[in-house]
Structure formats: C-alpha cells, structure tokens
C-alpha cells in the first residue's frame, strides 16, 4: 500500500513537472513595445471576425453597442462582430487578464490618462495618428480636446466615444427658498451658501462616497485650481511625481471644508446613487455629478417634477486666489483602442469609423443619453437643454482635468482615494494624506 502511495505521488509530481514545463512561464512571453506598423487604410473587401470588448454591459447602455455591431454586420455581410460587454468594475479585472495573457481583442475600451498609457507603454495599442490624428478627415469630426485626451508623446492611440465632465447641479427652488440669487462664483461663496441652504432646511450638497471615487472627483478639480498646471503635469507623471507643492494640501483642506460645511454626514457609508436620490427627491440642494448622469434628473430618471423642471448646473468654483488653471474642467472622454497585435487592425479602424459617424453619434446620445465627442451630434431632438448647455461650456474649458484615479499611477491614486475617505470621516488630516501620497509617488518614481 505504501509503495502504491509513493508511486502515485511520484506520478503526480512527474505530471506536474511535465505540465509546468509544457505550459512555459506566463508573463514572460512579451510583444515588442514598438510593433510592426499597421496598414490602417480601409480594406477593399471587408471580411473576417472582429472582436470587441466594452465596459457597457449595463442594460441601459448595452443595446446601443449591440445595435451598432448588428448594423455593421448588415452593411458588411462578410464581417462577423464578436461583441463582449462587461460591467464597469469587472472590466478593470478582465482587461488586465486579457493583457497579461496576450489575448486582447481587436478593439478594447479604455479610460483616458495613465490607464490608456499603460497599454501604449506595454506595446498593446496601435498608433492611430495616420487615420484619426487632428489633421485627418476622421479626426476633424471630433472635438479637439477629446481627441487630445488619448494622445501620448504626440501620437493618437484612441478614438473617443463619449464626453464627460463634472458639474454641480442645483435645485433652483431650494436656492430661491434660501434667498440665493444664483450659483456661487467662488469657493468662499459656495461655503457661505451652504449655511443659508442648511438654514432653509436643505442638505446643501448630497454626497455619497461609499467606494471613494466621488471624493476623487472633487480632488481632481481642486488640485487643478490650486496647483500650477506645469507642476500638476510633472507630478501626475509617474517618473517625476513628488506632490510637494503646497497647493495639494490646500486642495485637501478645501475638500475638508466642503465636507464639513456642505455635505450630509456619513458620506462614506452612502453610495453615490443613494445620495443622488436625496437630490432627486428635493431634500438636497446640490449634487456633484457627471454630465453622463444628467438624464437621471428627469421624471423618467426618478426626479420629482419640481426638481426635474427646476434645475441647472455650474462648475465647482475655485478659491479666488487659486494659482492653478481656474478654467480647467474635470472630465474626460472614454474611448476605444486598437490592439497592436490585431490581424484585423484596418477592419477595426473601419468599424470605429462606422461607430462614430454622425448618425451613430446622434443615435447614442438619443438612445443612452451619452454626449458624443463628434461635433454637431447633440441636437434638440436627442438631448435635454442642460446637456447642450454643458457641451457648450465644455468647449470653453481651457483644458480637461482627467480623473485623478486614472490620470495618475494607481498607487498614487489609491493613496489619494484612501486619504480622501479619511478626510470625509474625519479620521485623517490633509497633512497625513499628502504624506501618504508623497510616499506612494516616491515608490512609483523608483519603479519607473
């Protein structure tokens, strides 16, 4: 019996050794960072299978992408589109697994900023400058700022699909009742308005920070106001980031004041959506949300009639003495990239051209409420007036401040995220937070 056990163990061990040897070492087989240059001109005959992955699995958004894929297949009978859609959070895992196993689909979704840059640095994104660069005919159809969000070292690697920006929406009735004539123009005004709104029985700003990112959006904007643009660019770069400018502490202090003076208590225990509900039912006077969320402030989206008919928006105001760019706006487009290793790169580009033509861009805005970066796509027929007004406002922004959690290295972003949660519940001071951020930046710099 003992002999048999030993033999079994030996056999299992041998099998394991053989398998390990056969499977090789995952993660060690890499593609060259500068891959072969791809021929991206539209193919004369369109045929083959195109694989695409998006993060739009939410039933509210998924049908648009399914419809586009079907329409492309109908227009090109030789092409089969293999569309995979996963949720926002699972996408972050799935795309990393696909990248590590070198099995990225032909087209994949990406947020702008360092998230996209990782693919570019890893040699996983095709240089699309020749087809979608700002001087190309396709490139000219996009808002230039949106196109620039996917630029890396002067080259274009992404096709923007939607436009997003962060605005403070407000209930005009609540403002009237609190005796406020209009939106605040400086941070000091905002803080003092919060006191008046409280006295009128409103929660000044509905704030739900359960998973940390809503606080990050405040900090994205406040950092842009309080730190000079050149310093910000240097610090957001993983290889040069230090975060020693006093503006960062100032931004954290301002965030602390907003939480103390304006927001509901227990923000960390409330989801963004739960907090939003208090704005939609008229109990909160303001809410900091994304342009993509504007369709929620309609009776169809869950708002009371009073709120749905009486709201407007303004940009989060800067402190009057802020040294940074006061005209920059938090926001960025999302986009699609083409796999550097794709054998169907030209077909992939053709599909993306189809997806972002004016007709589909207008359809996207109408069907799922997403503003498109394609110029002229928002019309009276497919958007609410506030969306069009926001798009005009975005065009007047001096720059987009890309989300802090995607523009910086993930370690730095996480230090900000954990710290902002600490500030929101009063367990950390701005000084402690910035020390953690500096430590994370030093680690990242060392690794870069």
């Amino acid at each position, binding site marked *: 019996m003992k002999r048999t056990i030993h033999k079994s163990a030996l056999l*299992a061990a041998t099998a394991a050794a053989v398998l390990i040897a056969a499977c090789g070492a995952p993660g060690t087989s890499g593609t060259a960072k500068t891959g072969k240059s791809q021929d991206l001109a539209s193919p004369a005959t369109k045929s083959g299978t195109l694989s695409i992955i998006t993060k739009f699995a939410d039933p509210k958004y998924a049908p648009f992408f399914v419809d586009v894929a079907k329409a492309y297949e109908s227009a090109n009978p030789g092409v089969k589109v293999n569309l995979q859609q996963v949720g926002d959070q699972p996408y972050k*895992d799935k795309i*990393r697994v696909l990248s590590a196993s070198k099995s990225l689909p032909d087209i994949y979704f990406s947020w702008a900023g360092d998230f996209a840059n990782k693919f570019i640095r890893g040699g996983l994104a095709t240089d699309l400058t020749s087809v979608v660069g700002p001087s190309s005919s396709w490139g000219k159809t996009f808002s230039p700022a949106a196109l620039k969000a996917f630029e890396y070292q002067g080259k274009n690697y992404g096709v923007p699909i939607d436009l997003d920006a962060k605005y403070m929406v407000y209930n005009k009735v609540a403002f009237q009742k609190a005796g406020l004539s209009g939106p605040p123009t400086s941070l000091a005004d905002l803080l003092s308005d919060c006191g008046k709104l409280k006295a009128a029985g409103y929660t000044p700003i509905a704030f739900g920070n359960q998973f940390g990112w809503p606080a990050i959006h405040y900090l994205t904007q406040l950092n842009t106001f309080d730190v000079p643009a050149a310093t910000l660019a240097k610090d957001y770069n993983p290889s040069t980031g230090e975060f020693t400018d006093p503006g960062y502490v100032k931004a954290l202090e301002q965030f602390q004041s907003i939480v103390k003076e304006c927001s509901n*208590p227990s923000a960390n225990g409330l*989801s963004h959506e739960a907090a939003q509900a208090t704005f939609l039912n008229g109990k909160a006077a303001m809410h900091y949300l994304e342009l993509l969320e504007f369709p929620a402030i309609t009776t169809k989206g869950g708002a009371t009639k009073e709120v749905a008919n009486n709201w407007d928006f303004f940009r989060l105001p800067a402190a009057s003495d802020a040294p940074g760019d006061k005209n920059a706006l938090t926001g960025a487009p999302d986009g699609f990239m083409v796999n550097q290793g794709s054998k169907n790169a030209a077909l992939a580009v053709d599909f993306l051209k189809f997806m972002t033509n004016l007709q589909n861009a207008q359809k996207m805005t109408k069907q799922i409420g997403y503003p498109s970066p394609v110029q002229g796509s928002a019309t009276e027929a497919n958007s609410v007036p506030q969306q069009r007004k926001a798009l005009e406002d975005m065009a007047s922004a001096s720059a987009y401040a890309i989300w802090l959690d995607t523009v910086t290295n993930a370690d730095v972003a996480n230090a900000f995220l954990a710290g902002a949660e*600490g500030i929101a519940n009063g367990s950390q001071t701005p000084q402690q937070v910035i020390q953690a951020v500096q430590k994370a930046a030093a680690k990242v710099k060392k690794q870069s």
Partner: protein
Amino acid sequence: MNRQIERWRTWVWVLPAVVLLVVFVYYPIVDNIRLSFFSWSAFSTSPAFVGLDNYTTAATDPVFWHSLWNNVLYAVISLIFQVGLALVLAAVLEEVVHQRLRGILRTIYFIPATISITVAGILFSFVYNPQIGLLNRALGAVGLGSLAQDWLGNPQTAIFGVIGMSQWQSIGYTAVLFVVAIQRIPRELYEAAKVDGAGHVRTFLSVTIPLLREMTTLVVILTMSGAFLVFNEIMVMTAGGPSNSSQVLNTWLYHNAFLTDDMGYASAIGTVIFVITFSISAAQILITRRRRVQW
C-alpha cells in the same frame, strides 16, 4: 498479467482526476510561488526577478498587517458564532424545541445560507445605511440612538459590519451540519445520561460535545479557512474601505493585482494565504486523527 492489467486500469480511472488537480490546483500553486519572486504587471512585457523583495514589502506594509489582523478577527468571531453558537443552537433545536417547531426553525435558520453573497451584501448595505438603515432605526426605537453609527463608513466599525453579515448568513448552515451530526449520536447515550440524573446542560457538555468532535473539527476547518478566504462580502459592502480599514488578505491581493498592477506582490500575498490556510487545515486534521471518538 491480470494484476498488471488491474494496475493499469486503476491508473486509467485515476488519471483524469490527477490531471485536473495538477492543471487547476498544483500547477497554479507552484507557478504562483514562482511569480512571487518577480516584479511584473499585466501590461509589462518583461518581468524582473526581485528575489524576496515582494515578501519584504509585505512585511513592511501596514495595510498587509491590518488585512491579516482583519482575517484573524474574522476567524475568531466566526468561530464564536459559527461553531460555538451554532453548536448550542443545534443542541437546543434537537433536545429542547418541540418536534413540530424544529423543522420550521431549521428552515428559517438555513434560509440566509441560500441567499447569494452579493444579494446579502447589498441587503445589509441597506440595513447599515446611515440615513434610512434598519439597524440605526432599531437602535433609536429601543432608546439606544446614541449607538447609531455610519457602520460601513466608519473605519472602526466597517469590518465588524461585514463580519456581522457573514455570521447572519452562515450560522444556520453550520447549525444544520451540527443537527445532522447530533441525530447520528445513539439515543441510548442520552437515555443513560438521563437515568444518571444529568440535566440538559450536563448532557450537552458530557455527551453531545465529545461525540461531535469530528464534525466540530470539520466546521472549525471550514470556518477558519473561510475566514482567510473571505472576499465577496468585503468587495460588495466596502471594497476594503474606508481608508483600507476593512481590507482582508484576499481583497488586498486583488487590489494589488488588478488596481495597482503589482502582480508580483499580489502573488506573494497569495502564497502567504496558501501557507496560512494549508497550515490550519493540516494542524486540525492531525489533531482530529489523534482524538477520534468511535462508538
């Protein structure tokens, strides 16, 4: 000749299971250990050998130790509720409660175990909601409003909020395991104890507990391994926050692998989790073998 055929036949039967185990269990374990000596990310093309650096990073990472502490808390509290309390509950159900009620109560206790963790997590997020949550309102209703908290938003209470949900979900399951084991104990032993004048408590201590040793060990192994493998509950309810206060080893591993792209460090955490759970299981199996009770 026949013996040889018999031996080969045995191997043919065993081979599929061996291959599956090797490919899906042993190979990943071995490769994970190998990868923990490299610095690599999902996007990098060239992993760099860093020796024990990832383990030194873990040793100096306060979040790693806090995560480990949270796992230990999870294990201790789970042992108290899912083993201790569930055992008492099972004994009360079998020995004290009237037969008619038993079935209903067993079902009621077991129902939470049939709910998916995601659903239970979302449900408890509502229970703990600081504005409209059932828990704070219940505390207010019984005059304990001062104890009302932002349960999941406060770094001091977030992990306990998640552990509480986990106990609610699992206690019925382990109680039913104990009920089944109690039903296997020969009735004569209980009758003999009764004849000797033993009450419910004495019978529980002197008959039930000793004869449930094997089941208790099994439940302890399951509970402790479960406490070190916990992941979904945290991800659904707090995602490790606020400020990493409710991170456990698995969520910290996930965080490093999929959010900060430090796959090598994540592999090192994975190895630590493997060593802990393997040691717990091995120790408990050895102890049970030595103290097996037979009747």
